[in-house]
């Protein structure tokens, strides 16, 4: 299967393997947020959250934009889409196999 060269699946799945980073992505689902606000729900220091943000940025799962003195973080759907495509490929394979199995059992 051809993997998109724009996004690195190793970096994406590594970034997604961590519960803090998944929680950060979840808070960005509806709209972008200032980076300084991301630490709030975790009682975690901004320093620790910033490190997780860097991992997400490196995987290109999020975009950072600067407006005035604030940096805002938003989701990059394309990177998530790349991971989704990879999973979809295997889902399709398994669905076909299960369908074959079902047909076999019905005979």
């Amino acid at each position: 299967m051809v993997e998109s060269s724009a996004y690195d699946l190793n970096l994406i799945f590594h970034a997604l393997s961590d519960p803090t980073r998944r929680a950060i992505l979840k808070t960005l689902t509806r709209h972008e947020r200032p980076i300084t606000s991301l630490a709030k729900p975790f009682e975690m220091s901004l320093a620790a959250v910033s490190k997780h943000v860097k991992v997400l940025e490196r995987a290109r799962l999020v975009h950072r934009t600067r407006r005035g003195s604030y940096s805002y973080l938003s989701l990059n759907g394309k990177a998530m889409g790349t991971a989704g495509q990879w999973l979809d490929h295997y889902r399709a394979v398994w669905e076909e196999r299960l369908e074959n199995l079902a047909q076999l059992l019905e005979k």
Partner: protein
Amino acid sequence: MMRDDELCVSKWIRAKREAVFAAFTEPELLRKWFCPRDLQVISAEADVRVGGAFRIRMNKGSEVHTVCGNYREVIPGQRLVFSHQWQELDAVTTRVTVEFSDCDGGTLVSITQEGFDTRQSKQSHETGWLSVLENLCEVMSPGGAR
């Protein structure tokens, strides 16, 4: 870009924050989990106050490793900062920050470690912590991984 001299990992544990903090600070509890999964803790000492020392010895067969350091910051139930050094290996001293937060009815443990001298050392510590945190998860809530 993420710097090569720091790592950050986290793990959700199905247990109260105070209990997870205790697991990090009480020697008899540390003895149950504070090592990678393929090792075993032989002894654990922890004098948890600023300036206090900790020392944990672990083994894999005849191979013994000792990790030691001093506490730099202790905020019960919230935050623990300590220096971290492997005694038998000629490794640099790094700085570890552990933060505990309430999350989805459990506790989110976040570990950052800074000051690595090589990328390889950072990577092996990242793998190591993930394994150590698996142990913690197992001890705190058997079968409770998410």
